[in-house]
């Protein structure tokens, strides 16, 4: 029994769904943010597996770019979370409801 790239992509789909569930079900902003990271990682695994299936290196280069963007996103996002915490002393997204109609 050999492992085809499709197995990795199936696993990546399941990991993506778990990350999406984390974003939709949790209300701690930090855990939601980690779930977004998990979704990005799942897509990275898809890129690498598809690159292996198609014999193209571009998948792995795309993963590097996703990592750069994710790193920038983590820095700015965590800065925003810390700033909100300094103003409100909460990390729960339910208590940040100023835009509620």
């Amino acid at each position: 029994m050999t492992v085809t790239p499709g197995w990795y992509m199936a696993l990546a789909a399941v990991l993506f769904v778990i990350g999406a569930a984390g974003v939709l079900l949790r209300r701690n902003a930090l855990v939601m943010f980690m779930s977004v990271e998990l979704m990005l990682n799942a897509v990275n695994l898809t890129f690498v597996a598809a690159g292996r299936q198609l014999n193209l290196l571009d998948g792995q280069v795309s993963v590097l770019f996703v990592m750069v963007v994710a790193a920038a996103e983590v820095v700015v996002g965590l800065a925003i979370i810390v700033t909100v915490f300094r103003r409100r002393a909460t990390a729960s997204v339910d208590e940040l409801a100023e835009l509620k109609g």
Partner: protein
Amino acid sequence: MVETVLFVVFAITALGGAISMVWARNPVYSALGLMLTMFSLAVFYVSNAGHFVAVVQVIVYAGAVMTLFLFVIMLIGVDKDEDRSEDIPFQRPLTLILLGLFAGGVLVAGARAWTTGTVSPTEPVNGTIEAIGESLFGDWVLPFEVTALLLIIAAAGTIALAFFGGDDEEGGS
């Protein structure tokens, strides 16, 4: 055979880490579960001939990003449990049903064909530093330069938030 064993072991590890990340009440446990998943993904990159990407995964994600997460978790406190009661009564079952449909659709579609297109190059992909570097500084040099700009903007924005973001007066800075 080796790849099958590696896949099964680290797939279970990755799924366990991901589920524990979503499930854990303590954000520190969430961060550790995510770290486990990221290490497992690095193993998968190695099995898919992405050696350099695997090294970058360990250094950047498991090293830098998760350390940053742990710092912020420690900074803003881990002792407050979030209550798990939901304001919208149907949100949780609806979420699970929709995500289950999504996962089922992807898996059913993938069982037919995971990738489309023709495989033109014949030699298998090999993600060494030399190959990645040639691709990165050849075809991808313009996106590479743009990411440098992106990182500078992110660093400047973070510094601005750290200096001016915490003022008590509204619209301060």
